[in-house]
């Protein structure tokens, strides 16, 4: 461990703003991409459900007519 205390770790020898903003932005971008992928998958799932429901309605209408 290179740092004596938690606050020294945060301060990064005076470069805290730079170091932490670099790391934050990096993982923010990666996280954003990951979230987008998960969110997209959820949307697709909804879309598939909607389509199956539509298909069922069409088939039902066909059977009843």
């Amino acid at each position, binding site marked *: 461990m*290179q*740092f004596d205390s938690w606050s020294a770790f945060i301060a990064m*020898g005076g470069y805290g703003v*730079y*170091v932490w903003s670099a790391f934050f932005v990096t993982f923010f971008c990666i996280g954003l*991409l*990951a979230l987008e992928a998960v969110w997209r998958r959820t949307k*697709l799932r909804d879309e598939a459900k909607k*389509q199956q429901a539509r298909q069922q309605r069409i088939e039902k209408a066909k059977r009843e007519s």
Partner: protein
Amino acid sequence: MWRWLHPYAKSEATFALNQKILPWFLIPGLLLTAVGLVWGLAYAPPDYQQGESYRIIFVHVPAAIWSMGFYVSMAIAGLIALVWQIRTAELAVLAIAPVGAALTFISLFTGAVWGQPMWGTWWVWDARLTSQLILLFLYLGVMALYVAFEDERAGGKAASILALVGVINIPIIHYSVYWWNTLHQQSTITKVITRFESPSIAPEMLWPLVVNIFAFMGLAAALVIMRLNNELLRREIHRPWAQKVLNSGDKENSNAV
């Protein structure tokens, strides 16, 4: 080549393969990221010249390396898409582009915040930063070209061609920018950053860097696979296999995505 690739021209086979290899990238990626972060931020020794600020290297260098690496892999996917007319390869181009662009952006941003304490300015027209900036433009061009087409197949093919043209040009751009930089060199400060990429870097700093390089590869590859799978499902949402995957989603939510 064709014999080997052909099964994966089918979306379903590609999807199944992707599902299988995704954990092999995602899990090591996450673990190595955790290790690399703690090691790099807390345990690696400070630099004798730059103090703690050099720790930005642990995200800057991996992002820069893979931004270039992913461009090359995007171009290879484009080549496969064009030569063998494989649609899944086109989709791979489109899955890689945003991830590569994000890596390029990360390397630019971290380069700027590293430059500020070291050089007293956010941006210098350093050869490394400049060629990264051009690389970002190339990624943006590929993405913009794809989006501009209404017909997704045509867009995918156009983007593949552009990626290929770009990858032929990258070494030339790289070389010309370095040459331009030495021509207009006004000070030697850029050497401060360059020093870290020479083999003379101390092993206590090198090892966490290596860990982070592999961590970034795992994470970025996992992102690409996730995006590719989403695209495959979206294009084939009418097909039974896609509906089956999407319906069974909730229980395998955690590892399928």
